[in-house]
């Protein structure tokens, strides 16, 4: 636990430095409208990262969320276009996500396919299937009430933020206070012990994939309602972004350790990098390099700080 916290602390320090530099060089970054815009844009990615946290905590991984996201976006658009009322669109989109996640879960749990292989296949499968089906066409001509869920821009943005905050709150609470939440930690921590302790490990594994799928569906909808048409190629690279957010936030990739607060931190760091570069006038070409360096830096820093602590403790 300590080591993982260390990573989160290292990242938090990096983040604080970045914010300090921004405050010094580009105070405009902290304008309320800018913070709000960044939050609204990144809310869907945060929601997916929350689901990814649970999957990784349970000792699994899912690299297919980007493709699931694209499929769910188009499903949402087609449903809305067909005149389905928005609450049902939301329900069905989350359902479509849950089905895709559930397929991953079934492959992993009952067919014994390692999660990275199963979701690697799912990633290609859904993406190519969607391409075949849409041929790249966007979903256009959505009903007027689709954008901002009919609330208008200001309330719509607020609604997205409230949704994300609500989901975050529920996840934080549920991971601590619902038996299933603790079971996720137990399964990711010691699968065999969990089985011996009578925890239905298969149900937990299946559940985390389904949950991530459902959250991906919700995220896709919340992302789609910001626009008046839906692109069919969305979500490329989203899986790596979500995994990065989780890992940067200090969750152990082998499961059992970590929490959603760390993921919030990780997602915030990733969300801030691109706009921060523009604000600081740094060239966009270095963005990926900086992202990679942060991940490596976090690993190295974590190790350096913990080993020093261990030595100090030994003395």
């Amino acid at each position, binding site marked *: 636990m300590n080591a993982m916290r260390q990573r989160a602390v290292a990242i938090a320090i990096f983040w604080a430095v970045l914010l300090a530099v921004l405050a010094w060089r580009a105070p405009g970054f902290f304008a309320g*409208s800018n913070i709000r815009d960044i939050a609204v844009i990144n809310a869907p990615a945060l929601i997916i990262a929350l689901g990814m946290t649970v999957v990784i905590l349970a000792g699994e991984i899912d690299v297919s969320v980007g493709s699931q996201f694209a499929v769910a976006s188009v499903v949402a658009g087609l449903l809305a276009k067909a005149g389905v009322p928005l609450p049902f669109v939301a329900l069905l989109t989350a359902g479509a996500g849950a089905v895709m996640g559930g397929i991953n879960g079934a492959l992993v749990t009952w067919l014994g396919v390692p999660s990275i292989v199963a979701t690697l296949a799912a990633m290609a*499968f859904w993406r190519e299937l969607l391409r075949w089906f849409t041929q790249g066409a966007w979903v256009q001509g959505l009903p007027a009430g689709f954008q901002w869920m009919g609330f208008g821009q200001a309330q719509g943005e607020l609604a997205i933020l409230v949704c994300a905050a609500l989901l975050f709150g529920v996840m934080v609470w549920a991971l601590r206070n619902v038996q299933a939440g603790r079971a996720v930690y137990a399964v990711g921590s010691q699968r065999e012990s969990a089985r011996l302790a009578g925890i239905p490990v298969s149900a937990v594994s299946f559940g985390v994939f389904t949950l991530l799928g459902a959250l991906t569906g919700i995220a896709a909808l919340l992302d789609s309602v910001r626009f008046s048409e839906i692109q069919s*190629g*969305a979500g490329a690279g989203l899986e790596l972004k979500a995994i*990065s957010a989780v890992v940067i936030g200090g969750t152990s990739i082998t499961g059992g350790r970590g929490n959603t607060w760390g993921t919030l931190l990780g997602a915030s760091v990733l969300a801030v990098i691109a*706009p921060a570069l523009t604000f600081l006038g740094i060239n966009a070409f270095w963005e990926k390099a900086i992202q990679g360096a942060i991940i*490596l830096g976090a690993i190295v820093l974590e190790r350096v700080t913990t080993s020093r602590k261990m030595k100090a403790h030994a003395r």
Partner: protein
Amino acid sequence: MRVENRAGSERALAFLIVLEVAVFAFTGPNFFSAANAFEVVRLGVELGLLALALTPVIVSGGIDLSVGSMMGLCAVVFGYLWRDLHLPIAAAAACTLLAGLLGGALNALVITRFGGAPLIVTLGTYSLFRGIAEGLTRGVDNFSQFPPGFLYLGQGYLGGLVPAQTPLFLLFAAFYWLLLHRSIYGRALRAIGFASDGARWAGIPVNRRLALVYTLSGFTAAVASLIYVAHLGQARSDAGTGYELLAITAVVLGGTEIMGGRGSIWGTLLGLGAIVVLQNGLRVSAFPAELAGILTSAILVSTIAIGRRSVGRAAAGTAVTQEDGTEEEEMKNSQLAVLSAVILAGSLIVAGSNWWLVQSVRPAASGGAGSAVPAKRLTLAVMPKAKGDPYFVSCRAGAEEAAKQIGADLIWDGPTDLDPAKQNEVVEAWITRGVDAISVAVVNAPGLSTVLRKARAKGIKVLTWDADAQPDARDFFVNQATPQGIGDTLADEANRIMGGEGDFAIITGALTAANQNEWIKFIKARVAAKYPKLNLITIRPSDDDRNRAFSEAQTLMKVYPKMKLIMAISAPAVPGAAEAVKQSGRQDVKVTGLSLPNMCKPYVKAGIAESVVLWNTGNLGYLVVQASKMAVDGTLRPGATSIDAGRLGRIGIDGDQVVLGKPLVFTKANIDQYDF
């Protein structure tokens, strides 16, 4: 039993390949030929090298996601050393290999010294390597005009038949086979993969062995990168994008256990073979490219699931002794049975879709060219840059209309994403299939030109459209508008909208997109020459993603409050930027750019996007098919000054270019007249 098991899965894979070959020999003209077999080998080399390198990594229980990015980095390093530092080509290559070695060593260092999980560490370097490559080239730079001796490595033939990279690949395959199956390192890696603690307790230097495979993996990626550059004739930072996942798929399909321990080079070669033959066979058969991904993932999951279940059953405690021979046999048979079922289902899908395609084309045959006696139906192949791109989707409608009118079979296929290497593969497949004309929207001119020349040598008429290849590699270029024409029009529009002065920003597609970079060059030139009071403040990428363009535009408006115009030059970026302006409520910022009228209609009507520039894409597709038909029947030949292009009337010819006309500028006044 385990040995048996592995042999069983390899047998199943071999069976799968045989089945693929049998199906495609039936559906794909000339698929079953020696020439095509060697083409398959060439197409598999870069991917194969990565898969070879990943096999020992995965056997050791790790993973390396950074190999694809490493190819990009090495390509850029190589180009930079050769062109800018004027190193001899051999020295540049040697230094590139060193760079690969160092990159691999970085992975190894962080994994062994700092105890990072391989998945996370290489996820980090996956971003880092690609990021450095993009940073070094500032996204836009690319390197070409490598000497022919170097290009031979990727494009030449030994004895006129065997692709030049084959011996190198075989050398690496042999090396990795020795490493994994015959050396103490392979033995140690296997032990580490099965039980890392068990290996440590046996006195094996676990960290040193792991460091070796990650370093080798970086080195091999560098070799793959050199071959890739030689193959395509161009070094860009996007080399090898997405290759890591395909390579992992090949390795895992080949029976290597993702958790470590089990795995073989033979299996990897077979897995690679299954994937590459499938891709090539689908192309030669002119089946939709999307099927490749769908079928590969279905095969992957079913093989692993079957393998897993049998291993799981054994591990669950059922006996592992002699008397299980029968059960084992059953497992293998059921494995084969399920695999066959998957392939069969796949072929049924393919056959079904093919039938459907034929059905949809047939009425055109009877109704279209009524009077002419259809001695032989022409097969005209047309390739967009990327199949899913809405711009090219809108071109397709016109192309199909023309094919219907002239009663020809149209093959419309291409990469599903912007991968320059994929275009080569598709053209190769069309040559093998023996089409009458090939028309390509070229992503990467130096790389594709060699293949196009080969097509011409085989008597196929070659046209380019949308973006040109090298002039001697094609018969005609169907020019919708020159980069200069586009650049000039955009700059003129910017000047008009901004009233002659002020700041503007550009949102491009991917930073590495060649087209956009060409346009930007001419925009800059025109602004410098004619509109000195216009000021280009920055260029931001959108990765052809509407949402990314949206957030970039949002940030730009805040950072540059005086900015008056956002020029978005990727189709999805215009609606993205316009939506951002709309949501900001700013009246003083306008959007213009290059996009499809349908996508932008609401924004043009609302006055946010003052104008959108584009040619009539439907007409472009229509003209391409008309022109390629005329090239085949000889109406369009050198010296012609104009052609009669069906509903487009007479189209002028300028040298070897068929010119569609000037770009259209869509505004509030005229946008409703267009529907694409």
